[in-house]
């Protein structure tokens, strides 16, 4: 985007020579990821902010039309890479909705636990990064300590720390072992201490509150009009959470374990407090889910003709070999209804939805993502106007913009 294009667009005809333009990003420590802001400044006050995005656009949705439902999971992983498991769960939730599959109770619980761990991981990064940008390094370190434990759990379950690609149509790539349960229990036990450490550092910290309170205020009406969901919407008073409103996975059975955390503030402080509150609820969900983890198979039966048989079945039985062949040959694959469906999950950033159009084959005709980062970032110019340059870091951090999801 040439700079002249931005300036001419907002010229009002009056003498505005005292305004000047500042390029913020694409490589700037406070953007965390690759995005650019063209700020028009009056002294230190932001008169106009024009975001320029697309630096990380890599055609994910086009790839979604070329890869099959199981292969594309490796790509959705890389959308919100702070909580990749949640993206996978949302993607396969939509595919299973399209195909009308009901996954096993054990799979539901494992996915629920992982989705909540991903939420905690995402919120910890967001909270820690906001604190870091505002000068509080210690909270960031406490937060990242706990994120490390989440990665350990995910590594144990899937064999991969960062991009696990753990879910498959109709289940998971493999079941979890007993260590997983031990690790999750240990996490549930150790997390409240780390959480209270962060709370004690920030909740009554005068500098932190001065930098966040009343900054970037989004009223309820604006939040609805601008489609804000997740913590951003709830911090503005939208009492909406898909885990309560449209319960999926194991959430119908865990309704008693958690509450929706809301606030009326609508500012950066409210978004921070909502995220801190949600982490407590997430730990409660995990604690309830891990103690009620059902036994039984983790994948739906192989007679459904959609799940990949495990390796021993592939190598040692003719049925397993046939099914493996059917799923991996280009001219076979599974059949899907010729229709389209929207499925959404409540991920850490907000409502992550997929609008999948199927033409009956194992590949999506169209795999539209509803990216919460993209929709939240659209509110940014509105939020930042009239604030100081230093508030950009606070507002950007509180929206938790993940550029890979922003640009896809």
């Amino acid at each position, binding site marked *: *985007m*040439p700079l002249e*294009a931005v300036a001419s*667009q907002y010229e009002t005809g009056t003498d505005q020579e005292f305004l000047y333009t500042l390029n913020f990003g694409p490589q700037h420590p406070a953007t965390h990821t690759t995005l650019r802001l063209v700020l028009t400044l009056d002294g230190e006050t932001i008169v106009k902010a024009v975001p320029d*995005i*697309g630096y990380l*656009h890599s*055609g994910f*949705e*086009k790839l979604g039309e*070329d890869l099959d439902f199981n292969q594309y999971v490796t790509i959705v992983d890389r959308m919100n890479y702070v909580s990749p498991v949640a993206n996978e769960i949302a993607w396969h939730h939509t595919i299973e*909705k*399209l195909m*009308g599959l009901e996954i096993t109770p054990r799979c539901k619980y494992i996915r629920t636990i992982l989705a909540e761990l991903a939420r905690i991981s995402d919120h910890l990064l967001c909270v820690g990064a906001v604190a870091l940008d505002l000068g509080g390094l210690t909270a960031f370190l406490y937060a990242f300590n706990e994120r490390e434990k989440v990665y350990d759990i995910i590594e144990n379950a899937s064999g991969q720390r960062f991009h696990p690609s753990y879910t498959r149509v109709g289940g998971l790539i493999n079941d979890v072992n007993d260590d997983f349960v031990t690790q999750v229990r240990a996490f549930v036990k150790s997390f409240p201490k780390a959480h209270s450490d962060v709370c004690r550092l920030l909740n009554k910290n005068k500098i932190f509150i001065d930098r966040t309170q009343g900054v970037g205020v989004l009223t309820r009406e*604006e939040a*609805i*009009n*601008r*489609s804000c*969901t997740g913590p951003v919407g709830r911090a503005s008073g*939208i009492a*909406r959470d898909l885990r309560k*409103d*449209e319960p999926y996975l194991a959430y119908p059975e865990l309704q008693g374990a958690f509450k929706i955390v809301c606030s009326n503030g609508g500012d950066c402080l409210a978004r921070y407090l909502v995220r801190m509150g949600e982490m407590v609820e997430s730990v409660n969900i995990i604690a309830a889910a891990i103690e009620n983890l059902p036994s039984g198979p983790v994948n739906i039966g192989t007679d459904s003709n959609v799940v990949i048989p495990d390796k021993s079945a592939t190598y040692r039985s003719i049925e397993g070999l046939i099914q493996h062949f059917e799923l991996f040959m280009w001219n076979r694959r599974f059949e899907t*209804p*010729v*229709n*389209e*469906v*929207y499925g*959404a999950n409540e991920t850490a950033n907000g*409502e992550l*939805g997929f*609008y999948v*159009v199927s*033409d*009956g084959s194992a590949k999506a*005709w*169209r795999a*539209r993502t*509803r990216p919460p980062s*993209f*929709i939240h*970032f*659209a509110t940014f110019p*509105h939020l930042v106007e009239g604030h100081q340059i230093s508030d950009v870091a606070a507002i950007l951090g509180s929206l938790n913009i993940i550029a890979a999801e922003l*640009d*896809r």
Partner: protein
Amino acid sequence: MNHQEAIDAKFGAESAMPTEFRDNKRLTVPLEKIYGVLAFLQVQRGFDMLCDLAGIDYLGYADATDRYGIVYSLTNTNSGERLFVKTFANDPDPEVPSVVDLWEAANWMERELYDLFGVKFAGHPDLRRILLPDEFTSHPLRKDYPMRGYGERHNFPTVTRAES
């Protein structure tokens, strides 16, 4: 009176064609009535949030009569009800009325759809490309755009330090 009957009562018979799949309730609305129907749904029927805007290219899709599908995913934040309103646009000049004045959220969603599909939104305040660079000439999510592209990336002008 359900939404479809209410729309038909206001905009004339067969203004909204209902379909349903799983828990998704869809209404297909002709292009010339789409803006009125969306405004009606927002103001009268409580769909205050435009949750998502999806574009689909139906070129070569079985039994498809129109080329571009645009799906407005509406949500009622009070009741949690969802409704999917679908309309179609066609070549050579696909154009849909913009709903930015109804929902501010549509601003970037419509820009993205324009960028990737080339569907124009009449009345949009700032219809520029958003994800792809301005120099880009095609719309990559169209079905006739090849997976490997047309070599745009290799033909980008190189900006040297002296010129910048």
